[in-house]
């Protein structure tokens, strides 16, 4: 491996709460004091690594610093932070939308060949670059001779029917900690009334609440947990190749598709480098690469046409609604009421 790895796992600082918590940093390309392109991202390095490697293979003189953090820290860093980043990628579409709406993103005009579908962009500030279905991951060994639930309705009755087996064996995101988890839960609540019923049932089974999908997947793999709800497909798919107890299920009533988005923050030091990278990411080469060489799907993915239940979460100002102070407060209260009984 030509690149340098600086792994600073869980980097605690005794500064105020809005300080950026860096989970991992990796640099690509020639070593420079300040990298040409500083990316702040919530996408696991292992998932995104092929894209970065491909980019510096095409443009060997560019140095990239890839900083991994969580969506909520990323949001606060872009709003109030001091560190200059050139590109911000996050899976929390709502937070990204709020950044763009509130004027924290630069306008970037991209050539025709790098224009994604209309629904994948907002103004010329927010650019979706990959799609990922959100599903559930179950323990293969447990569901060896039991039929796994195919829809949320199935899931609810399955949970009700197997209360004894499943107590403490279900996990999902703690929406208070994870921005992506909050997005998935609010979209669920918006999509269907059965969400709250399911939340009640999960609460009654003392469902475990996690900050991050990695830990949930590990727990499922060991058999410690039987089912993880609302997991990003690309992670699960990738893990399932090494951890053979993982089975990914996309519910048939509906499966939300997460649109990962990128924006160029207002404080960028190298607008051109960010734009170049976006052009690469969004043109046919980059999109083809994402489709074939990563566990993410491209914007034009066939999967979207083949599976009618796959619904991309709409990238529009509706996303701002659950970030409203009162609405968020109300949602979290109801969520807590359902999950802590």
């Amino acid at each position: 491996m030509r690149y340098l790895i600086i792994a600073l796992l869980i980097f605690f600082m005794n500064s105020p709460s809005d300080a950026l918590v860096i989970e991992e940093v990796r640099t690509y390309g020639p070593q420079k004091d300040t990298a040409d392109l500083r990316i702040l991202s919530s996408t696991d390095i292992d998932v995104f690594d092929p894209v970065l490697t491909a980019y510096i293979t095409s443009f060997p003189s560019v140095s990239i610093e890839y900083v991994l953090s969580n969506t909520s820290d990323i949001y606060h860093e872009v709003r109030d932070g001091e560190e200059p980043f050139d590109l911000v990628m996050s899976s929390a579409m709502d937070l990204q939308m709020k950044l763009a709406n509130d004027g924290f993103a630069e306008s970037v005009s991209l050539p025709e060949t790098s224009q994604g579908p209309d629904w994948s962009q907002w103004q010329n500030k927010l650019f979706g670059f990959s799609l990922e279905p959100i599903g559930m991951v179950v323990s293969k060994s447990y569901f060896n001779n039991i039929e796994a639930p195919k829809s949320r309705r199935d899931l609810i009755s399955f949970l009700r029917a197997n209360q004894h087996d499943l107590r403490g064996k279900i996990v999902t995101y703690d929406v208070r900690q994870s921005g992506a988890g909050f997005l998935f839960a609010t979209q669920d609540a918006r999509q269907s009334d059965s969400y709250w019923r399911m939340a009640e049932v999960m609460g009654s089974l003392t469902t475990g609440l996690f900050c991050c999908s990695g830990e949930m997947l590990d727990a499922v793999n060991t058999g410690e947990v039987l089912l993880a709800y609302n997991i990003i497909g690309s992670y699960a798919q990738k893990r399932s190749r090494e951890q053979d107890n993982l089975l990914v299920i996309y519910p048939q009533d509906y499966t939300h598709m997460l649109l990962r988005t990128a924006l160029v923050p207002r404080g960028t030091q190298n607008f051109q480098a960010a734009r170049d990278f976006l052009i690469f990411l969004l043109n046919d080469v980059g999109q083809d690469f994402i489709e074939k060489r990563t566990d993410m799907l491209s914007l034009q993915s066939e999967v979207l046409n083949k599976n009618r239940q796959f619904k991309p979460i709409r990238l529009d100002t509706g996303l701002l609604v659950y970030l409203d102070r009162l609405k968020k407060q109300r949602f979290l209260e109801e969520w807590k009421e359902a999950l802590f009984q």
Partner: protein
Amino acid sequence: MIRKLFALKTTSIRNRLLIQLGLVAVVISLFLFLVVRLALVQAVTATQDRLLAAAVSSVVDKIYVVDNMVSLDLPYDTFSLLGAIGEDRIFYQIKDDGKFLTGYEDLPYEGPFGDLQEPIFTNIDYLDETFRAASIENVIFAGNQARRLTIIIAQSQNFQATVLTKISTNLIFVTFIFLIIAILFAFLTANLTIRPIGSFADDVKMRGPSDLRKVSSDVPSELLPLVHSLNGFISRFRTALRQTETFIAEAAHHIRTPLSVVKSESELALRKSKTPENREHLRNIIRSVDQTNRSATQLLDHAMVLYRAERPEKQKFSAHQAVEDLINQFRPAADLRDLDIAFSSTLEQKQQLYLDRTLLETSLRNLLDNALKYAIAESTVFVDLSQDKKQITVTITNDAANLKDFNASQIFKKFKRGTENKDIIGSGLGLSIVLEAANAINATIKVKKLKGESVCAILSLPC
């Protein structure tokens, strides 16, 4: 460029008209464009306002009270819709009795506020953009206490801009088409307007050099003053011309009498004179007198032709008879130079002409005079009379010497003579008189050189 335009402007009424009409068309197009665009902006703004009003009222619907606390369940679809058309940015602010409740606290709007039926719409400058905002105030009851809620929703104007650019592009296209049509009409109008001027000019241009009739006043009323002054000018000119002609005729007449006296006295003196020197002087005098007399006669002839041309006295007479009589008058003169005149005619005796006989005779006389003058001595002058369906032709042919400088296009001009025949008496007026007389009786005259050193004059008369 501008100077060029002005140059055009001053040289032609048509261009001036064209430029003026074109300018008017451009101004109207521009005006049209601006008015329609203004109307469009108003329509689009009204649409946006209605959208915002709907958004405000759907937000108000979601306000509720728990434990004396005002709360709000912001409607997802409303926000989704507001941004749908133009990917617009949205900001909102809700205050409870002046206390900030939720939204964007720094939204710079303090009122006034409308109500649900009639929200107040304003433009707000916020961050780096201008937003369209709807604001209302609404009273709700929490417990037993009335609370005044103010709600502002502001939307950026991409939607407006998007719709406007789309429609404006079409509008520009339509305006352009309109402009082109208007300019085509301007061309048409300009051409139609100046057409009477053109035909008037043609009318004047087509006239012969001595046509001094009044110009027809069948022209647009704007041209009447011009026609009147032109006619006034023509009649003054005609009067002056008439006076000159009369003067010349009278002068010629007055000269002729003393001249004949001088001539007869000189002849008498010649007969009596003994010294050859004196005789030579006297002969010179007589020749000059002859020359002058001839010029005077021809000036008189000329004046007569011009006079009669205006009021010809038409009469019926036999063509054959008229020509034959004239030839007979010339026979003595021919004999003097040992010339023979051969007259041939394919015309019936009784073939009649109807025209001014004096004018015909004048022209024939001058032609015969030329033929006898320039014919080689002891040759024959041929006079032929013939006829076809349309005309009667008199052809006079004579052999002539010194035709090297014969120039058919020059000889009809006044006082233009052949250079080789200085010793033959002549004034250079003969053929111009012929031409004038022929024109007056609608005849044509041609004089051309034939092979073998002869000249032939052809006078064609309408019958």
